[in-house]
């Protein structure tokens, strides 16, 4: 079946004419038709756009102008502005918003000729870890429809896991690529902050937001990251450095690799089955020639509190533009300006978004700024310094992505703190701006579990190399839920 192929295989078959991009794209559109009503992984499906782009891609292929990804369809998280397509951020606030421009990432992939299948579901404004806060309802986990797919890029993870797209874009502010990748048994990488342009990505917390690929394998992610990354003058925080070839190191041996394993990561709160999966995966790495050393991240518990001050603070300001004046939701019959603001925002935003706006505004308000915002910035530096120190003793750090496998829909929606704490392994990485990968490493309670690999700044190629080598000796990444095979 087409959807079981690797990206390289797909590309090869497109070039040799075994199938066309239109056929490949139609195959995915048919699967979306068949499965997505139940899964709810797409907010918007764009069949006409997809087919017309596929036709263009076929012409390019025929003319010998194709790049490796030309003709391979992609699904964009609904946080990426897409010209002429509804870009809702899964919010009622933007339910009527048709973006008049492309995000840089969307433009880059368009230029290569990757047909757009549609826009994937997510937590509203990327605020959440379960994709339950979407205005369009929760996405289901393809492995178990009772379970959440993780979040916020839950729709993206689900479409890859269910074979409803071969590649998907995601964003990761506090774990939003890696945690759903772990929950859905796919591969996802959050690059170094600044490696991928944020232009046209609807901002949640600007100093954390980072886009990355979500695919079946590390190799696929490497090809996709090659297409997504690069300096963009329209994003002032974009890194002005030469973009490396992220596939260059894929085949390197792991002999001599020093893996740091923080003892702190295997303490109370970590599900023992998840712990076993992660330890087994690390043992597999040792078989490949890697060495394990113990490292310490003593301030790891400061990360979640720091993040839940800073991210909402930035969000409270970033989301001020949604005021009902120029675009997006506007309340019915406002009586005056204040009523327009209050009701448009009260009615347009969901509960979690409003909660974070209020928390953030509070942390920035006069008299509390020093105690919350500045203190949280200080903790952020301490968490980052922990990593920098740890990388003196190891090449990468490995551990769990999340403390548990996917939880059930509704299980944590009334307990925000427990939801927040489920991001304790991923958030420190965002505070530090480091790259990190999640690769499928096994199952716990019949639900997928990912292995978290964190590296120093700009070590994406190394992380993908490790993921790829691991995937040469394991087959977790090729597994699909029975009904989607």
């Amino acid at each position: 079946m087409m959807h079981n192929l690797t990206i390289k295989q797909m590309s090869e078959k497109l070039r040799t004419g075994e199938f066309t991009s239109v056929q490949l794209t139609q195959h995915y559109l048919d699967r979306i038709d068949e499965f997505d009503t139940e899964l709810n992984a797409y907010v918007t499906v764009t069949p006409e756009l997809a087919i017309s782009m596929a036709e263009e891609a076929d012409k390019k292929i025929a003319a010998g102008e194709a790049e490796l990804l030309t003709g391979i369809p992609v699904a964009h998280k609904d946080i990426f502005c897409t010209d002429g397509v509804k870009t809702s951020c899964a919010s009622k606030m933007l339910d009527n918003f048709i973006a008049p421009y492309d995000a840089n990432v969307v433009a880059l992939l368009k230029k290569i000729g990757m047909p757009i299948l549609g826009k994937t579901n997510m937590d509203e404004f990327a605020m959440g870890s379960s994709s339950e806060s979407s205005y369009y309802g929760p996405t289901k986990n393809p492995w178990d429809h009772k379970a959440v797919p993780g979040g916020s890029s839950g729709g993206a993870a689900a479409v890859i896991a269910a074979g409803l797209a071969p590649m998907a874009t995601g964003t990761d502010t506090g774990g939003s690529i890696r945690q759903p990748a772990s929950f859905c048994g796919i591969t996802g990488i959050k690059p170094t902050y600044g490696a991928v342009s944020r232009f046209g990505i609807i901002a949640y917390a600007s100093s954390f937001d980072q886009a990355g690929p979500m695919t079946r394998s590390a190799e696929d992610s490497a090809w996709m990251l090659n297409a997504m990354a690069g300096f963009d003058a329209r994003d002032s925080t974009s890194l002005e450095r030469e973009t490396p070839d992220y596939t260059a190191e894929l085949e390197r041996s792991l002999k001599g690799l020093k893996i740091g394993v923080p003892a702190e990561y295997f303490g109370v709160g970590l599900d023992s089955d998840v712990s076993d999966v992660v330890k087994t995966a690390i043992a597999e790495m040792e078989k490949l020639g890697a060495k394990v050393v113990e490292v310490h991240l003593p301030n790891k518990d400061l990360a979640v509190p720091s993040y839940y001050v800073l991210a909402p603070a930035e969000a409270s300001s970033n989301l001020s533009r949604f005021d009902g004046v120029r675009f997006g939701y506007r309340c019915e019959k406002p009586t005056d300006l204040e009523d327009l603001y209050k009701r448009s925002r009260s009615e347009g935003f969901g509960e979690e978004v409003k909660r974070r706006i209020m928390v953030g505004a509070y942390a920035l308000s006069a008299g509390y700024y020093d105690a919350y915002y500045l203190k949280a910035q200080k903790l952020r530096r301490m968490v980052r310094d922990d990593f920098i120190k740890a990388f003196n003793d190891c090449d990468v750090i490995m551990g769990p992505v999340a403390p548990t496998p996917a939880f059930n829909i509704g299980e944590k929606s009334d307990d925000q703190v427990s939801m927040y704490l489920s991001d304790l392994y991923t958030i420190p990485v965002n505070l530090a701006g480091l790259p990190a990968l999640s690769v499928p490493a096994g199952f716990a309670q019949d639900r997928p579990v990912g292995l978290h690999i964190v590296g120093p700044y700009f070590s994406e190629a190394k992380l993908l190399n490790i993921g790829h080598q691991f995937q040469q000796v394991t087959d977790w990444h090729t597994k699909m839920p029975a009904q989607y095979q």
Partner: protein
Amino acid sequence: MSWEVVIGLEIHAQLTTKSKIFSGASTAYGAAPNSQACPIDVGMPGMLPVLNQAVIGKSIMLGLALDAEIGKRSVFDRKNYFYPDLPKGYQTTQFEFPIVGQGKMEIELEDGTKKIIGVTRAHLEEDAGKSVHGLVPGQTGVDLNRAGTPLLEIVSDPDMSSAKEAVAYAKKMHELVQYLGICDGNMQEGSFRVDSNVSVRRPGEPLGTRAELKNINSFRFIEKAIEIEIERQIELIESGGTVVQETRLYDADNDTTRSMRTKEDANDYRYFPCPDLLPVIIADEDIEAIRATMPELPDAKRTRFVSELGLSDYDATVLTSSRAMAEFFERLVALTDAKDIKLCANWMTSGFSAALNREGLSVEQSPVSAEGLAGMIVRILDNSISGKIAKQVFEAMWKGEGTADEIIEAKGLKQITDTGAIEALVDEVLANNPSQIEAYKAGQTKMLGYFVGQIMKASGGQANPGQVNQMLVAKLK
């Protein structure tokens, strides 16, 4: 009992950049509503700011002119509040780390006394858009053309103690930013906006509560508004009231100020560093490079005009009142090979300035260029025309009738220096005025002036007055 007045000014100078501070949209004034607002200016989802580097050099230039500390690391912050003309729900500004720190400026009052006014800081920020009333009946529109226009907010210390001092400071700053070429100074279009913080106190007491006077677009009204506000505050306190902290608007028609909003309406702006913009790092070399490109400042130029060009204080002041005026003058002197600097200065301060004032034009808008005026002055210097004829030539040039030489030629204004021609004129006038000759010879020597006048008139003003004089005296002996 006496009162002490304390005034501080906040001046918003719009920087002369072609595009906005964080986007590529044009800053040109007067375009159709929202035609110069790009998705970044409108605060569309996913849009990000990119700093227009041109604003940095311009700000540093002002800092150097004010002898101020330059912020080696300045940071953009977000000032959060909701208003329809503020598209993102925050204004990007500099709060804790401005680009220009403490500086100072010397002002001179009409009576010649001088005073140093401290400049607390100058920081960069983006302008908001504006609400438009009446375009759609019953509704308020928003025009975002101005949103994102770069502003340098220059904050003074509360060092001024009268309306006159405040205006002297504002005018000097106005002159300075134009000299530096960082702001066009157009107050009508809002390129240079002055907000005045005014309070009064008894000598020796702590600062009184201040009121802020906003949106006044002429120096004359700024002075009047401050004076009225001082009176209002004094009367209020003396009659047992207290001044409240508020923003007041000046009403020029009724010559009063009225409350616009009080402190109770004030927002908590929740300032924090803008995560979309990197801190601006300035190296010493950058500062020196900018210093090297700075034009001569008005005070230095004025001093030089007196010491090197030998001009009077008055002429030097008038000729340095704007950079354009000074540059016009210096060009004029150069084009006339500095043969008669005083003559050039006189023409600039009288004939030229009078013509500009009459038509309400700026130096840049003058129909007569420095080259044109120099062409005329050269003809005065080589005795082709007299000073009086030059006035006619100038007016014709002003009306666009050609160059000085073309006009002199076309109108036959060249001075008569031919002895025979002058003698004929002298003889004719003397022949027609026998009684006046009698009177002259009887001792009424002032009759000489009468004869000169008549001869000049007969020559259409073109006879060389010196030659006429000489010949008359000889003939009347």
